[in-house]
């Protein structure tokens, strides 16, 4: 009996500590922007930061919250937005759609005037309906599901990351427009990543009158030899190959194509835009095209942002940090340029005003995707990937 009582007491302690611990972290995230300016008479502009700040995917969400904090601290240390202080409402959605809807309702109730978030595509989709009804601008640093912008269902949605199909779009535009190939072979490695890209590429080519898919095939990763598939490409009369997958298979296929004296262009994705590919494929890598993220390592704002992060948190920033930094800058800029907090003015500012961010100088198109963010085409030239402008 005593034993049971003491165990119950133990459980209670654990539960209390858990709840209390959660409150502690919640408070610590909110208390930061307090001492900026108490004298102001105007109410602060409230920006909600919603994402996964705990759980399995916390590492995707926390860098975004930190990015927002850094930008806001910096602005508040100056004079905020047109003299108004910025306040962050940080909410955790654990990347779960059902919780995301609750978080969304909560920040709407607390009077958020714009939202930075959410992190995961599923959670973002669940929350977007609520923000749309409340006419709140929402910018996600990381939700890559293509339908979020392309469906046109969410005119209030923007994002500072390229959508999943952006690489396929770039590859197809490049092959049809720049290389002027009409017959295209699309291959993939049957994996989620490679097949997903190949399916998008196939769809885009079929929707375009300039080109046709003459071969669509999945190959077996790790096979000892790809000569049958290479023969099939040759037989199909393809003028270019688009491959979705990773570099080990890509290098084998390219090498076998080149050894069979097939000189047609080989275009692939950021799974191939890897220096290992050049090392392994050697001379056969020469001339291969691959898409990859636009280089940000020389962007002064990015360098500054990373430095600020290191100074405040003592470590390198995590995933989507620069995307979130860019999103917050874009939002702050939109508030500033529109001189207002109403929805229509904000949306107009986001779509028309260029803003310098760690990802480059960006604005948003009418669907909500950032122009200037995303992928660039690279080609192997003299043993190095060189960006093709």
């Amino acid at each position, binding site marked *: 009996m005593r034993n049971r009582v003491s165990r119950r007491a133990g459980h209670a302690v654990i539960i209390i500590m858990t709840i209390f611990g959660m409150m502690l972290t919640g408070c610590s995230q909110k208390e930061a922007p307090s001492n900026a300016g108490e004298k102001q008479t105007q109410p602060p502009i409230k920006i909600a930061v919603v994402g996964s700040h705990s759980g399995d995917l916390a590492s995707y969400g926390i860098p975004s919250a930190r990015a927002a904090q850094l930008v806001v601290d910096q602005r508040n240390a100056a004079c905020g937005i047109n003299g108004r202080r910025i306040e962050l409402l940080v909410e955790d959605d654990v990347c779960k759609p059902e919780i995301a809807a609750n978080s969304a309702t909560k920040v709407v109730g607390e009077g958020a005037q714009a939202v930075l978030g959410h992190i995961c595509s599923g959670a973002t989709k669940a929350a977007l309906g609520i923000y749309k009804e409340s006419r709140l601008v929402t910018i996600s640093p990381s939700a890559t599901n293509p339908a979020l912008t392309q469906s046109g269902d969410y005119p209030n949605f923007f994002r500072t990351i390229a959508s999943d199909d952006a690489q396929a779009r770039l590859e197809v535009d490049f092959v049809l427009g720049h290389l002027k190939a009409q017959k295209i072979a699309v291959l993939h490695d049957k994996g989620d990543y490679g097949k997903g890209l190949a399916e998008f590429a196939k769809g885009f080519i079929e929707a375009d009158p300039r080109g046709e898919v003459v071969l669509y095939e999945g190959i077996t990763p790790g096979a000892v030899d790809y000569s049958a598939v290479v*023969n099939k490409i040759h037989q199909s009369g393809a003028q270019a190959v688009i491959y979705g997958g990773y570099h080990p298979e890509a290098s*084998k296929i390219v090498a076998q194509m080149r050894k069979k004296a097939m000189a047609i262009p080989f275009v692939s994705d950021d799974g191939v835009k890897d220096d290992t590919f050049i090392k392994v494929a050697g001379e056969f890598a020469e001339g291969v095209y691959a898409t990859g993220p636009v280089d940000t390592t020389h962007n002064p704002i990015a360098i500054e942002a990373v430095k600020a992060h290191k100074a405040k948190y003592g470590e390198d920033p995590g995933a989507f940090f620069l995307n979130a930094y860019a999103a917050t800058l874009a939002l702050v800029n939109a508030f500033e340029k529109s001189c207002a907090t109403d929805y229509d003015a904000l949306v107009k500012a986001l779509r028309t005003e260029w803003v310098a961010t760690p990802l480059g100088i960006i604005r948003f198109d009418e669907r909500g995707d950032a122009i200037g963010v995303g992928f660039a085409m690279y080609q192997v030239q003299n043993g190095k990937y060189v960006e093709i402008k």
Partner: protein
Amino acid sequence: MNWDYLLSLFMGGLTRGSIYALIALGYTMVYGIITLINFAHGEIYMIGAFTALIAIGVLTLAGWNGTAILLIAAVAAVVYAAAYGWTLERIAYRPLRHAPRLSALISAIGMSLFLQNYVRMAQTANFLPFPNLIPEFAFLKPVAHIVRSSELVIYAVTALVMLLLTLLVRFTRMGKAMRATAQDRDMAMLSGVDVDRVISLTFVIGSAIAATGGVLIASHIGQINFYIGFLAGIKAFVAAVLGGIGSLPGAVLGGLVLGWTESFFTGYVSSDYEDVFAFLFLVGILIFRPSGLLGRKQMEKV
């Protein structure tokens, strides 16, 4: 009917098939003698390729070039892999000789995983480029789009290896001892055959052939990593079963049939279901010929 295309697929299948056959020969020899499926055989093939790569690196630094490097690297790979095969048998299989067969099988799987991870840690997990050392033969220029010189070398070596093995098993004293051990180990021992030596030699020969295959294939494909032995090993095992496990010509025939099946299926239907079709074909053949294409019927001893 496009004959050029048909011929390309045929040659591609022949290359694949020869690769499978070279590895399958080792599987089938070991199985024939001690009825053990040596799952670590694919890893020996991988170790052969790695040894050759290291030897090539050293020789290139020393200023050698061309065919000489290939030959010396191949010899180094064969010797080193044969030593691995011998050691493998001594430490992983011989102590289990009289244990239930399942124990030896588990030991084989364990060795396979061990060798894979050992190479991953001792060398690298990355893909490494493997130089193409087989020179392009001038007389193949006109048909270069159908068959390349590295493929020709693979066909030739496979045929030669099969021929030598058959001669060894049929006409030498050692071959006689091997056949005797395969038929009845206890009886062979009673007649004065050094069974332990025969089994060791079987592992040494099987490993040497696998290493030869490793060097040729790595040179043909141009890249290796620690994982290449796994899939090649599985496919070669299928080839050995298809041809009739325990039969040397069966292993080669099984390899070729599997290679052609995959190549033609990819060429005329789709490569999406290449493996599915290859294994369906295996099931089909085993339904009608349970002991494989060239396998002997197992007589139940009374």
